[in-house]
């Protein structure tokens, strides 16, 4: 008896069958037999099968069904009945088994005693020019696992619905009477679900076992690719119903729930994508089928999916086509805003309808997406084609409308725009056509354009076959660009237009409208004249030739070289070998704050002081991102990591930053590095961190070299010396006990306050439109990281609407999230809560605030200089400061203000702020003395005097 029977099913696939069978015969595990079951093919499949049997006696057996069954179920069932092996594996004639598949699956089965072993499947894109492969649900197969029941890992049943990447104990199949359903598509879904549920033990292995060969762009799409047919959808819903029945029978509620979530997230998307392009009859039939299934889905499942997915399912349930169509468009392109939205009772909704229904109000609430606060040019606005006409020769008239979310584009806004045709692949050229009209139509901005494609569009030909259409708008000076979604306009029925490629009309003579995968309007070069058709054939052939291969290879090489030229590695080399040979320029100072993210903090304070004293120097500010915002106009601005940046660093007399210039850049001996640092430490830092301690010596030495570049390191207190300086292993003579320049402003503000006996609000209060009668609270939490060090998404840890409700008349709350985070405030708190996360330097905000709410942010050490009340909202103290990371001191012991852990306690502390103020006066004084003893308000002056005006320069 063989260990394994591999059942290879085949239908009209004589060419590929031998490869599939050979992949079994070549298995490293030899105790394997092959059963070929032919589903009564019309080609030579069965003869080939018999030949394989004759060539491999005792190892290959061939069978043929008496009549075609039309699916995979019947032939596989036949195979199961004929198999002799202890285990059974299914293989399709167009796929192959990995050579160790049988060995690994048998080993796992014997080791664990599992009824079912499943390994990783890989999708191989056979047409791909670069051998593209994609692992199939790799997260399921990341490690070896043994499950006593499928309920331990619902994802397996929910996602991996294949029957082929698995090894079944044959006795198990027979005992359980497991077989494939016949006469229905998607038989794998049901079979695998039944097998998972029946198995008493399941083993998962991370090894690749099965290569699923995928043919893209095939003219005759395989069953699973023909999504738009309603018959398929009928089959799909039926299979889903049967699987649900099975789960219900077993009482597997969690599995059913996970499956519901997946249905909303994935299955429904597949079908909704095509909706805008399909006719009304189909839509209606589809909705009926889908809705009867959606009715069985758990209402809680909606909370687990992306808002837009839930919105689509909800609107489909209501058969609200008017609102569903734009939503379905947004589903295809994540993040796209295709509806004008409405604001109601302080919240933002997808549409105005269905809000009386509590489910509707919950699902359609999109406040958290921040569409009302994000700048227009940061939104991806929907743009739908509304008219399309051509003259049959070369001119196209197009019209469309762009969403105007919440009426944010005001009626009087200055609007201009143009349509752009851009080649998709190489984007070598683009052609612009001015709009013929652009009008504000309330909830939309409507545009019209006329493009004389035949005369104006000049593609090269061959390499720029696909052309995308973009609409560029200028709205009161803000640039907004969008693609044009074809929507329900049937652009395919537009005429092919004349075109004159630069490589002559022989390469192509027509350009045709078409719809991209994401539903956007694009154009494709085609051939119509006989000569052109012939040339295209020749070109296609030539492109597959050896010479073309060489040409393509060199092109790729050239592209790679260009990429290498701009890679970090090359830049670092150029910095050291070329730029660092240039002379150092006296007076050149490179400033950077938070790795270029801002013009802020102590580097800014030093820069301002240099300006104030009129020192003659040459300032360069580094910025990160596409465009610098908020940086001074009278300094040279260089983008971080650009060649200009590297050159400035190489030639600078001074480096001044608060976090660290790129560690891979060596500082020249002639350059003086003033590291201002950006805050005293509560949490352990540098080499006091476990993840640094565990590093090997070369890595630790590399990091130390980076830190040893600091010639001067600013400290605010002996606490900094004991913590930061020790953690970074800095030499005593590198420490500059001057305090933080950014804090000079705070010390000065406190001085003024003592002198005048009154607190003055500067221009910032007016800029933020703060009611002079209200006190100002600043909430400034720090960021939280995952154990892997990634920044976690920030959500306000208290109900900001409840806060505004209770304290809004007395206080204005400013929210300052860490610069790595973002915050979205609902419209309901407008005027009571203000987001000051970006665009403001922190020190003026601290001066403005009458009290500070923070958690572990180093701002506590700075704010204490103002001697104003503080509240510590440390709702996750154990997790944040717990034993795994460690802090330099226990905040709860030393905190100069109440430490609270819950929203209720926070609100209580805010209500009691006045009494806390006096109660903690002593603690504040001690805190300030311990952590800010060197902050005397003269830090920037001291630094300017020491390095810039004393004449020494060092």
């Amino acid at each position, binding site marked *: 008896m063989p260990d394994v029977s591999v059942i290879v099913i085949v239908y009209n696939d004589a060419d590929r069958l031998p490869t599939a069978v050979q992949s079994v015969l070549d298995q490293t595990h030899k105790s394997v037999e092959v059963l070929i079951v032919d589903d009564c093919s019309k080609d030579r499949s069965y003869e080939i099968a018999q030949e394989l049997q004759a060539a491999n006696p005792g190892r290959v057996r061939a069978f043929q069904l008496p009549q075609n069954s039309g699916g995979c179920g019947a032939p596989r069932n036949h195979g199961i009945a004929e198999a002799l092996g202890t285990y059974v594996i299914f293989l399709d004639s167009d796929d192959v088994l990995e*050579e160790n598949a049988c060995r690994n699956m048998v080993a796992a089965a014997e080791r664990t005693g599992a009824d079912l072993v499943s390994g990783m499947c890989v999708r191989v894109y056979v047409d791909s020019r670069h051998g593209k492969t994609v692992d199939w649900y790799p997260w399921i197969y990341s490690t070896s696992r043994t499950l006593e029941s499928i309920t331990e890992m619902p994802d397996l049943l929910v996602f991996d619905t294949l029957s082929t990447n698995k090894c079944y104990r044959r006795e198990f199949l027979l005992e359980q009477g497991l077989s494939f359903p016949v006469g229905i598509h998607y038989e794998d879904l049901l079979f695998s679900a039944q097998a998972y549920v029946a198995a008493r033990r399941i083993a998962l292995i*991370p090894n690749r076992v099965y290569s699923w060969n995928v043919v893209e762009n095939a003219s005759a799409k395989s069953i699973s690719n023909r999504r738009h047919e309603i018959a398929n959808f009928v089959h799909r819903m039926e299979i889903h119903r049967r699987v649900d029945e099975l789960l219900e029978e077993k009482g597997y509620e969690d599995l059913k729930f996970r499956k519901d979530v997946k249905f909303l997230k994935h299955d429904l998307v597949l079908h909704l994508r095509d909706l805008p392009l399909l006719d009304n009859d189909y839509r209606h039939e589809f909705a009926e089928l889908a809705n009867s299934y959606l009715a069985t889905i758990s209402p809680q499942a909606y909370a687990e999916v992306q808002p837009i997915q839930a919105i689509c399912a909800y609107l489909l349930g209501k058969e609200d086509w008017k609102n569903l169509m734009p939503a379905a468009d947004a589903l295809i392109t994540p993040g796209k805003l295709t509806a004008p939205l409405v604001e109601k009772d302080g919240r933002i909704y997808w549409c105005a309808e269905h809000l009386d229904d509590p489910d509707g109000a919950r699902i359609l609430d999109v406040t958290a997406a921040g569409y009302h606060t994000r700048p227009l040019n940061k939104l991806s606005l929907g743009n739908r084609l509304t008219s399309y006409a051509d003259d049959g020769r070369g001119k196209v008239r197009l019209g469309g409308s762009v969403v105007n979310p919440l009426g944010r584009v005001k009626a009087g806004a200055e609007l201009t725009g143009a349509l752009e045709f851009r080649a998709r692949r190489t984007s070598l050229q683009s052609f612009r056509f001015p709009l013929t009209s652009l009008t504000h139509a309330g909830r939309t901005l409507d545009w019209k354009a006329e493009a004389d494609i035949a005369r104006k569009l000049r593609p090269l030909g061959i390499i720029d076959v696909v052309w995308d259409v973009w609409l560029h708008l200028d709205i009161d000076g803000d640039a907004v660009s969008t693609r044009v979604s074809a929507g329900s306009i049937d652009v395919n029925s537009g005429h092919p237009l004349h075109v004159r490629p630069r490589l002559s009309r022989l390469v192509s003579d027509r350009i045709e409208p078409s719809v991209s995968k994401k539903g956007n309007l694009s154009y494709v070069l085609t051939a119509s004249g006989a000569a052109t058709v012939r040339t295209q054939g020749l070109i296609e052939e030539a492109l597959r030739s050896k010479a073309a291969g060489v040409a393509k290879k060199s092109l790729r090489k050239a592209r790679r070289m260009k990429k290498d030229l701009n890679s970090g590695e090359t830049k670092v080399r150029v910095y050291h070998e070329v730029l660092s040979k240039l002379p150092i320029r006296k007076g050149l100072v490179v400033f950077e704050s938070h790795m270029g993210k801002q013009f802020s903090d102590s580097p800014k304070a030093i820069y301002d002081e240099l300006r104030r004293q009129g020192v003659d120097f040459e300032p360069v500010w580094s910025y990160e991102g596409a465009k610098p915002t908020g940086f001074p106009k009278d300094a040279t601005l260089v983008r971080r990591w650009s060649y200009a940046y590297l050159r400035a660093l190489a030639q600078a007399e001074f480096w001044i930053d608060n976090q660290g210039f790129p560690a891979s850049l060596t500082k020249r001996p002639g350059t003086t590095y003033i590291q201002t640092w950006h805050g005293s430490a509560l949490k352990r830092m540098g080499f006091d961190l476990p993840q640094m301690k*565990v590093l090997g010596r070369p890595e630790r030495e590399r990091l130390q070299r980076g830190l040893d570049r600091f010639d001067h390191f600013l400290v605010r207190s002996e606490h900094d010396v004991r913590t930061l300086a020790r953690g970074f292993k800095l030499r005593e003579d590198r420490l500059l006990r001057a305090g933080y320049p950014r804090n000079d402003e705070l010390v000065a503000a406190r001085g003024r306050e003592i002198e005048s006996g009154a607190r003055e609000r500067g221009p910032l209060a007016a800029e933020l439109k703060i009611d002079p009668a209200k006190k100002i609270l600043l909430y400034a939490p720090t960021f939280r990281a995952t154990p892997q060090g990634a920044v976690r998404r920030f959500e306000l840890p208290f109900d900001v609407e409840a806060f505004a409700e209770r304290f809004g008349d007395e206080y204005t709350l400013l929210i300052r999230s860490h610069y790595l985070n973002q915050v979205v405030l609902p419209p309901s708190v407008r005027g009571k809560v203000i987001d000051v996360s970006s665009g403001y330097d922190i020190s003026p905000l601290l001066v403005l605030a009458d009290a500070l709410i923070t958690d572990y942010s180093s701002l506590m050490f700075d704010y204490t200089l103002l001697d104003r009340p503080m509240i510590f909202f440390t709702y996750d103290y154990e997790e944040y400061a717990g034993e795994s990371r460690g802090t330099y001191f226990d905040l709860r012991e030393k905190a100069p203000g109440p430490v609270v852990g819950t929203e209720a306690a926070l609100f209580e502390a805010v209500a009691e702020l006045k009494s806390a103020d006096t109660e903690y006066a002593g603690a504040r004084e001690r805190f300030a003395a311990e952590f800010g003893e060197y902050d005397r308000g003269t830090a920037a002056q001291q630094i300017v005097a020491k390095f810039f005006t004393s004449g020494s320069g060092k």
Partner: protein
Amino acid sequence: MTEQTAMGGGRDIFFVSNAVNELGGVATWSHQMARLFADRGNLVHMVGITPPSHPFELGPDLPYGTTTLYDVHPPSVPGAHGIKGKLNLADRRRRAARAEGMQEQAAKLTRMFRQARPGAVVIVTQVWAMEWVALADTSSVTVVGMTHESFEACRRSSRFGRVKRYYKDVDRLLALTREDADLWAQQRLDNVDFMPNPLPFFPAEPSQRTSKHVVSIGRLHEEKGTDLLLDAWSEVAPRHPGWTLRIYGTGSDEEALRRQCTELGLDGSVEWMGRTDDPEGALQDGAVFTLASRGEGFPLSLLEAMATGVPCVAFDVAPGIREIIRDGEDGLLAPPGNTLIFARRLESLLADQELRDRLGDAARENIQRYRTDEIVRRWEDLFTFLER
């Protein structure tokens, strides 16, 4: 040793390593395994590619033969990197000569393998040695490749690329633990499996665990993390007077470590014991064992300590460590590099004889899953499986 089940005359088993008697864990392991296989009636032969650079004495009567291919270590030649490298004629000549020499030595392996009886197995213990085996004709033998370190440690070394290249087509690649094997599978070495190391010894009596000695055994090299151990000890020692940390081993970092010890004010509570040839004795005298390594594979010292019934504290730096120690049940783990927690775990043992006894007894009991007869059985099962 339990009952003998060797088949008629046993098998031909070859061990191929970088060197036959290079000082270190791999050679210790391979000679232990070779002896175990030979004891079961197999015909074992041990092959080294080159002479060792730090040899150890093999002892008089080995129950198996040894062969070293090269008389002297072949010169190393840098790889051809970039255009400059490719055009360097001297290097090219040297590379060609080296390749020719490799072919010549591989031919010796081919002859050995061809003379072997059917069912012969070649165990390649190190990937460098595999470069020669890959050149030899292995069609008549089963080749088992091994990586004797954690996946992570290998990934950080130059061996990573070579493991992926040279072990790709061996009949089975063995990592040390299931977790490591899974990581290799993700690198598309789908022929991977795993095999733990056997216990180096199992003392008749466990340690009394009543001495006030904390023991550490290992080379004084940064990878072994003695500096981290001293950091942790500096948190523990002041609170537990009377306890001594005994550090066995020598190495290049000794001077720096002694300096660190003095700086931390630990001279009164740390004893530098030098190298020991009697780990069993050192452990018998210990109440707690510490392993502060930054990287590990399947540490023999941990197996030895647990076999002696000494409760262990270790940084959880490798799958092998969490495979051996079940945290809280038969030993204690601390997150990598977290000396504060390491210190806290250590303190809990120093303060509590009852806890020491409980963990130590459990360790001695549980660790027997790696006793030699069990590991030999797993190897023999593997050989049989690979024939199916």
